[in-house]
């Protein structure tokens, strides 16, 4: 299987979607001539032309809303918001319109819109460029939230998002763009709403997604050297959430730790924890644990940022504590 970076995998997905369906177009800030802030759409302007690769003014609310309108008008827009931090300027369109129009119109409308954005911290970009707010968006019914952690998913879940009749938000962790992985040429669309066991184990279930997956797998390798076999679950979609995959793992391991780059308070990890408690409480040998970001605006200084974000070492330490506590 060919190897490619996460960035190239997203681009391959975009290219495939654009080639397959003339209704698909990409718009966003600097997606055309600049080639994308993360170079994801590099070359697509030459290949597909300015009608389908559209540079927008810096007006997040309006170009996201225009994506909604174009979707209502029969197109299949893919909107790139440079980063999740700027998506806050489009929150009204996403939450008040994209998520509600189908329901509010009594089922008359569908909004087949894809909104892609980079998320996450870890690149010393300080407090306005390091948010992980996918958990916020996952709170809202009417939209779907996809969080690919590996290049293969970056492509296949993007294709699934484009094929979906409802609005799908795709969160691409910015630290992943340069990461390589195997991607099948002919894989086609993946399945939204399906989690995956990335590493089997029996001692503890480590539940994570997106940019934290690599850290958690690294922690699991480290734990394995001490004879602790952790099972690692990649959620891949936050809404609709595949909680069954999590629960069947917890029923096997009897312990769960959730790793989420969002702030701990009201984090997505809190939701997963509550769901485990509701459905698998009597299978647990100890409390569900969470490793999340510290409750501070993300700091610039490297050592401080590292301390603020979930790290493999924190995961290792937390798992050992969990196992130690219940003897």
């Amino acid at each position, binding site marked *: 299987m060919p190897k490619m970076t996460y960035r190239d995998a997203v681009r391959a997905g975009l290219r495939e979607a654009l080639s397959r369906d003339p209704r698909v*177009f990409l718009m966003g800030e600097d997606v055309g001539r600049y080639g994308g802030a993360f170079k994801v759409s590099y070359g697509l302007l030459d290949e597909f032309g300015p*009608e389908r690769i*559209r540079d*927008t*003014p810096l*007006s997040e*609310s*309006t*170009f*996201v*809303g*225009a*994506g*909604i*309108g*174009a*979707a*209502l*008008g*029969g*197109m299949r*827009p893919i909107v790139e918001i440079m980063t999740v931090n700027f998506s806050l300027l489009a929150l*009204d*369109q996403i939450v*008040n*319109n994209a998520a509600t*129009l*189908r*329901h*509010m*119109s*009594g*089922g*008359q*409308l*569908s909004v087949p819109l894809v909104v892609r954005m980079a998320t996450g911290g870890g690149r010393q970009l300080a407090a306005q460029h390091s948010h992980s707010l996918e958990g916020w968006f996952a709170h809202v*019914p*009417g939209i*779907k939230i996809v969080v690919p952690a590996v290049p293969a998913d970056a492509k296949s879940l993007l294709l699934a998002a484009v094929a979906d*009749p*409802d609005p799908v938000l795709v969160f691409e962790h910015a630290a992943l763009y340069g990461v390589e992985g195997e991607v099948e040429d002919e894989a086609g669309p993946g399945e939204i*709403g399906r989690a995956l066991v990335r590493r089997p184990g029996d001692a503890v279930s480590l539940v994570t997604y997106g940019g934290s997956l690599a850290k958690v797998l690294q922690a699991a390798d480290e734990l394995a050297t001490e004879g602790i076999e952790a099972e690692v679950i990649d959620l891949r979609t936050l809404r*609709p959430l595949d909680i069954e995959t999590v629960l069947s793992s917890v029923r096997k391991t009897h312990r769960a730790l959730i790793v989420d780059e969002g702030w701990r308070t009201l984090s997505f990890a809190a939701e997963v924890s509550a769901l485990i408690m509701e459905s698998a409480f009597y299978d647990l040998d100890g409390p569900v644990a969470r490793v999340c970001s510290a409750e501070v605006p993300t700091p610039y200084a490297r050592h401080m940022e590292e301390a603020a974000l979930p790290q493999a070492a924190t995961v290792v330490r937390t798992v050992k504590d969990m196992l130690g506590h219940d003897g």
Partner: protein
Amino acid sequence: MSLQAPPELGRDHALALLGQMAMIRRFEEKAAELYTLGKIRGFLHLYIGEEAVAVGVMQALTPEDAIVATYREHGQALARGVPAGAVMAEMYGKANGCSRGRGGSMHVFDVSRRFYGGHAIVGGGLPIAVGLALADKLLGRARVTACFFGDGAVAEGEFHESLNLASLWSLPVLFLCENNLYAMGTALARHQADPDIQKKGSVYAIPGATVDGMDVLAVEAATRRAAEHVRGGRGPYLLELQTYRFRAHSTADPELYRDKREVEAWKGRDPVTLFSARLLEWGLASETDLAAIEASVAAEVDEAVRIAEAGPWEPVEDLARDVYTGGR
């Protein structure tokens, strides 16, 4: 008022305009009454006083054109031909409402008539209109997207962003600012540094005009010119329609912010009575015609109420329906 009817105004068309305005007036009066009876709940924003705007504008649109409206949209919906019974049933919250009772007064949708709501976040409909127009442009369809918003929306960032984007990409959007002088309770002069709304289009290279929104013929004529510009592929157009709402902002509004004398003065320019008087004077209608219109709209409103009363409640088991298209 001129003593002569405009030569192009035929009697049938004149009576149709009056009939539609009278229908909206009677429908809204009935809605207000039903609200006090508790049949309609939530917010209710009445269109009384602004009828000439919706009716005049709709004359210039074809069935292929799209409409995006605000939360004060019963008038636009009726003028577009959304059945009165479906709008009334929607306000009752019934399953035979045009939005199956999921939207209520503020969220009237009828996709078969390209009536895309019913948007209750001020300014939030403008980007959607821009997108509908973008789809038309990309698909090579010579259609107009008519986007209604109030003077309050002019203070929102989305107004400026949307005008800029529509003009930059030369999109077929007809921006219709229904200036009723108040953003809820804040007078135009108290929220705009420059209250000349039509002028704001010019900084985005958008042509426009200001029209007397109490004069249905003036509205129709101005909208025809504007729609022709937009349909001809020359980009967006901004039409400011100067009007006034005779009733409170919503049923929750005690109207502490405006002088009763101001309201009375505007009522002297009531678009329905004004137009009725003109038609009589021009000899295009008789007292019998006016009485027939009154009787006809009264019967239509009664029928709408009957449809709403008779409509079923959606079963609670269907609560999660239509959150996602696949039902998931």
